[in-house]
Structure formats: structure tokens, C-alpha cells
């Protein structure tokens, strides 16, 4: 008679399931935690991130809100001030501008205004980015607005595991976090992966996706996957690129960036958002401030053009960063 004990099969999770499981994990862990947003309860969210949560935790903890982002964020700040962590869903991250004042003037400044006696433990998350034919109202990547407002943390994962681990850290953070989910990746099969329940990824830590010696490519979010493709293409050209996924924009893991740039002397930064005052510009400015004497070529960036995201797909793809564009610009830096 023998018994075989085997671990239960760990199922692979997609980006969306990883987010849901992280939120659920924290809801179970912390009975004080609340979720609020439009259609997140009965419907389970426009994309299904919160599916099943209202059923499991009740309508008091998973709240269907009226269509007013200002009211939603305001209510979340109020609950947060009473010590309850709040997950706020923006149906699309584009709509966050309706709650802008509450975020940048109230939530972001609270800890400063009260000498850190009060803090706002809220996470405002939502689907972001283009490549889906969503048009100008449903394709934005507006993280630079919030990275520019001191007091907010800004997160943008590119893999299911990072989405899980960073969501857990964000929900445990005492300060407001704006969490950019790449909706184009929500159900991508190719990137599904196993994620242990206790995965936690601290805010402010970048990851080196691929080590290399010739060129540093820095990105985050959806373009990260383009960069991975491009690194393969560059390898065929004899260029060994190091890939850095920032994962968190604020706080920024400057150490990892500088260490890499000091090694390679060449850098390309890719962000999906528009060019002027985009985060890529910030990264490059800091590299200039801290690594100038190590540079062997001018740092370049690939970004969206300075236009809204067009509805028509050929135009949308023309405006957004592409594999070809990243590849060509990377070669330009590598061959400088």
C-alpha cells in the first residue's frame, strides 16, 4: 500500500487573473480592505478583473459606484483616511482625468499636509494603453501626469507575475498608488506563467529582463515585449542588448539603470505614451545627470507621436511605437 503525495498542479495565470488573484488575496488577508468602481460588483468589471469578488466579499466591500470618478476617488480617500485600504478601479485609465483634482491635490498631498500623521492607502488601477483600436478615449498611457505629481507612486507591470507581486505591494502601501494595467496583455496566452501566492515585488525595483553588454534598452508596460523581440533581432546583428523593465516609475530604481548604463555606455528608452514630457525623457535626463562620463552615444527614445491615439488601426499603429521603430533606433544607438 503506498500513497503518493504530490503538490497540486500550479496553474498558469494570465495577466488579468494574476491581478484578480492579488486583489482577492489582499481582500482575504485584510478584512478592512474595500474595492470601489463602476460596474465592478454585479458585472465583475468591464474587463472582468473583479469577477466574483462581490459574490465572495459582499456589496459592502466590493462597491458599485455611480459614474463619477471624482466621487469615487473622493470616497476612497475618505475611507483610506479612516485606515481602510481601497482598491479603486477606473473603467479605463483614460477616465482618471475626471478624478484628477482629488488625486493630485488631495490624495497626493495628504501625508505632506499632515506631517505624515494621515495617509491615503489607495490604489487607483485601470486598463491602459493602445494597440487595440480603442481610439482616443480608450488607449491612453497617461502615467507621466502622475509621475509628475509628488506624493503618488506609479506602477506599470509587463508580466502576470509582476502584475501580481506589484499589486500586492501597492495594496499594502500606505500611500496612493496609480497602477497602470496593460489591457492589451490581459488575456495574452504567450505570457501566462505560474505565480506562487506569496509573490511580493517591492515598489521601486526594476528587473533586468535580459543581461547584455552593448546597449541598454529601458522600457515598461506593453513596449517591453517589443523590446524583447528587438533584443533577439539585435543579437543576430551581433549587438548584445541589456533589457531593463522599470516596473515602477515612482519610486524609480535609479541604481539598476545607472549600473547598466555605466556598463554599456549606450541607452535607448521606450515608452508608449506621447513624446513631450513623457517618462522616457525623464529617464534620459537622469542618465545625463548621473552617467554623462560613461556615455558613448547620445541616449535616444522611442515614444508615441505627439498626437492623440487615432481610431483607425493603420493610423494607430503608425503613431504608436513599433518593433521596427525600436529596432532601427536601437541600431542607431548601438552603431553610433
Amino acid at each position, binding site marked *: 500500500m503506498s500513497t503518493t503525495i504530490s503538490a497540486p498542479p500550479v496553474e498558469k495565470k494570465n495577466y488579468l487573473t494574476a491581478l484578480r488573484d492579488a486583489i482577492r488575496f489582499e481582500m482575504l488577508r485584510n478584512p478592512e480592505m474595500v474595492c470601489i468602481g463602476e460596474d465592478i460588483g454585479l458585472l465583475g468589471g468591464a474587463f472582468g478583473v473583479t469577477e466574483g469578488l462581490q459574490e465572495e466579499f459582499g456589496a459592502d466591500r466590493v462597491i458599485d459606484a455611480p459614474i463619477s470618478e471624482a466621487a469615487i476617488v473622493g470616497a476612497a480617500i475618505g475611507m483610506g483616511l479612516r485606515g481602510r485600504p481601497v482598491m479603486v478601479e477606473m473603467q479605463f485609465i483614460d477616465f482618471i482625468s475626471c478624478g484628477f483634482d482629488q488625486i493630485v491635490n488631495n490624495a497626493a498631498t495628504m501625508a505632506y499636509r499632515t506631517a505624515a500623521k494621515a495617509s491615503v492607502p489607495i490604489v487607483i488601477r485601470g486598463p491602459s494603453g493602445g494597440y487595440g483600436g480603442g481610439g482616443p478615449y480608450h488607449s491612453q498611457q497617461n502615467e507621466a501626469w502622475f509621475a509628475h505629481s509628488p506624493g503618488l507612486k506609479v506602477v506599470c507591470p509587463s508580466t502576470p507575475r509582476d502584475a501580481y507581486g506589484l499589486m500586492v505591494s501597492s495594496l499594502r502601501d500606505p500611500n496612493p498608488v496609480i497602477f497602470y494595467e496593460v489591457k492589451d496583455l490581459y488575456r495574452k496566452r504567450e505570457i501566462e506563467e505560474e505565480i506562487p501566492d506569496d509573490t511580493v515585488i517591492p515598489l521601486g525595483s526594476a528587473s533586468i529582463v535580459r543581461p547584455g553588454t552593448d546597449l541598454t534598452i529601458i522600457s515598461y508596460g506593453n513596449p517591453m515585449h517589443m523590446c524583447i523581440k528587438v533584443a533577439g533581432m539585435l543579437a543576430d546583428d551581433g549587438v548584445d542588448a541589456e533589457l531593463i523593465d522599470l516596473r515602477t516609475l515612482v519610486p524609480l530604481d535609479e541604481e539598476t539603470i545607472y549600473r547598466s548604463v555605466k556598463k554599456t*555606455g549606450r541607452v535607448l528608452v521606450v515608452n508608449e505614451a506621447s513624446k513631450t514630457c513623457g517618462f522616457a525623457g525623464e529617464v534620459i535626463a537622469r542618465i545625463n545627470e548621473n552617467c554623462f*562620463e*560613461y*556615455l*558613448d552615444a547620445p541616449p535616444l527614445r522611442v515614444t508615441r507621436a505627439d498626437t492623440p491615439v487615432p481610431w483607425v488601426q493603420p493610423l494607430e499603429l503608425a503613431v504608436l511605437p513599433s518593433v521596427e521603430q525600436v529596432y532601427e533606433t536601437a541600431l542607431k544607438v548601438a552603431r*553610433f
Partner: protein
Amino acid sequence: MAEPILMPELGESVHEGTVSRWLKQVGDRVEEDEPVVEIMTDKVNTELGAPAAGVLLKILVPEGENVEVFKPLGLIGEEGEVVEEGNGSGKPAPTTETQPNAGGQVASRAEEAGEEGGRASSRAGDDGDEGGRASSRAEGDGEEGGRASSRAEGHGDGEKRWFSPVVRAMMKEHDVSEREVSDIRGSGEGGRVTKKDLEAYLETRTGAAATAKREPEKAAEVAEPAPEKPTPPPAEAPKPKPSPAAAEGQEVIKLTGLRRAIAEAMTRAHAIPSVSTVAEVNVSRLVEFRNANKDSFQEMYGVRLTYTPFFIKAATEALLEYPMLNSSFHEDYTVTVNHGVNMGVAVALGDGSQGLVVPVIRDCHKKTLVEIARDLETIAEKARSGSLELADMQGGTFSLTNPGSYGALFGTPMIPPGQAGILGTYAIKQTPVAENGMIAVRPMMYLVLSYDHRLVDGMLAGMFLKSLRERLERFDFFR
């Protein structure tokens, strides 16, 4: 009669130094005691004054080279005075050796100044005036002059060659001239010399270093054959075997300054027959105290409370109890036993890549925990800002290193020469331990004592560690 500038004995364990900078050039007038040269030893930069008033006649040890204690660095004499040996006597080695260096210096100075053209050529003019002094010098000066004027031309054209910041920085670091770089075939856009091109070039240059040290093609242009000796002759010290040439994918770096001093000290440390003994300590009370008081400590005393002052304090008390660990072995089989404790504390510089110094906290046996914490902060700050003086590093009777600060679990520190032991304090970790027949989780850490086995046996080391452990375990600030 020319008077030599001698390398003084700058400290007890300092056997040589590196010339980091000549503050005067050959031909410059100096007053007695006026600083002429900057010497670097153990991270301490010291300026040496002129032994007499006069003119700097000759530089015997160029920048970047090492010099042993009591050896001459240069000569001071009357203007126009002819130096007996060296110049004119057909011994080219010292002159040709210093010459390219002086040339490199002119160029780099001009670079720093920013407005190269005018400055470089006016300097070249200065040198030209002096050029007549010795024939071999005149040749070198001609070289300099030509170089400076070609630079000036380039500037005038507005066709100044462009180097990327990293290439610029590497040129400076490895003392490579623009002219040298312009001869490298660049692989970058428009033939630009990239970091990799320069690295590859430096490899071949280092490989050829055994014959011509600085500028191979320049050496070829000089009428006389390039000198065979890589170092100037003033010291009759045995020459180390030349390093192997760098193969592809390698580079050979010459250790200078602090790194070299560390390498030498470690070689001497290795000669001490040493053993390490380990003890494990439960630091619950210490951790509790620190967590509860670090903010108020900072507020009351203005000093950050880290664990190191506790270790210093406890080690000091244990050393007073076991003075043989606080002693120094001499080659004639005598021992100096110290009755007071000067604690050397290892401080890593920069991110750990810039070496390590061991400044000393004096008279720890007379100091309170607060005073030790304050002293520690002061020397650590001095170390980081590079403003330690030789006196700050001397007179240590025992040392402490805290690899726990970067999470190290366990290691075997090396004893600083002249001391009988060093204590390593390692990471504090929450660890399950058996306590009264039950498992409890406690903050535990390892203490490692490395000691001179000529003076200290295992038993004594064990007793010292036991005393230290008990002091840390029953720690009470208000005792």
C-alpha cells in the same frame, strides 16, 4: 648643489607612496616649504614641501609612479644649475621617461582649461623658452610644441575631433592623448572612436607596455630608441615580473594609490599565522533597545544609532579583560601589550568598488556608547568624503569589521598587520532557536574572531568571545 626632495616616512606601516600630482613643473621657482608634489598613501593625500628655496630642476618620479620611503622624488637647486647625473651624461632613461609624461600633462591641462588653443600654445611657448637647457629635453619640448600647435590649429578650423563623454573620460584615466586616439581606426558612425575601440587599443597598448609605456608611436618618432626600462632608475628595488600582456577580452590595470596599498597590506596580513573562531549570539535585547530608541537617540544626541557602536563598546570591554588580543607581535619575539583600546573600523568607500580604509576610534575604553557612536559617524563621514588624515588611520590596537551591514552571514576577516586580532560582526537574522526546551524565534548573529595564533590560543579566543557574547546578550544601556 641640488637638494633632493625625499619621500618621508609618512606613517608606521607606510612603506611607499604614489606621486599623485606634481604641483610645480620643472623650471618653476619654489620657496622653502612651498608644496611641490602631492603624495598618496593609504587614501591620504599629503603635499610635500620644498627642502630649500630654488628652482625645481628635475622630476625623478613621474605622476602615477610609486616611490619608496627615503628615496628622492625630484631635485631643487639654483636656476641654470646643471644636474650632474642624468642630463648630459648620456643616461637617457630618466629624462625620456619623464618627458612623455610632462607632455601628456600639458595636453590634459589644456583640455581641462576648456579653451585649448591659446592656452596650449602659450604653454608650449613657455616650455620652449626653457628648452635649451639640455639637448634631450629640447627634443622633447619640440615635440610638445608641435603637438600644442597642431591642437591649436584644429581648434581654429572649428574641426575639433569629437569624442564621446566616456571616451574622453577613459583618455583622461589612461593618459591617452587626442593624437593617439586619432590614429585609432574607429568603428562608430563616420569612423568615430567608440569605447570599445579605445578599450581594444588600450589592451594592445598595455600589452606593449613592457617596452614603451605611454605612447608607442611617439616613442618611435623620438630619435633615440625607446628606453627599455618601464620605471625610472632612482630606486634599486627589485623589479617585479612584468605583468602578462592582455589577451583578447582582457585588460591589464596597474594598481595605484589606495588599491595598491590595500594589496600590499593584505599580503603582509596573510603572513600572520591566523585562525578564526566563531560564536553565535542572541541579540534580542540589543535589537529591542535599538528599535525602541533609535529615533529618540538621534533626537537627543544627534547621532544615528547603528549596531556598530554596541559592538565596539562590548569588544573594548572584552579586550581590557583579555589584553593579549589587544597587542602587537614583533619579529624579535617581543610583544607590545596595549592597555587602552584604539579601535580600527573598516569603512568601505563608494559602493564598495573604491576600496576600504580602517580609520581608528581612539581611547574607546574611556568613551561612552554615545561618544563612540559620535566618533564613528565622524570618521565614517570623513572616510566617505575622502578627508581622512594619516593620523586618523594610525595607532589602532584591534579592529572591527561589520560585513553584516551588507547582509553577510559569515566570513573570516584578515588581521591588520601590527594587531593581534580582528572581530567580524555579521548579519542579524531572525532564527529559530531552542530555548528552555522549546523553539523560539530570536535575532541571532555570528561573531567571528580572527587572531594571531602566535599570541593567542583557541581557548583564550573562546574566552574572549564568551565574554563578548555575554556582554551583548545581557546588554543594558542604563546599567
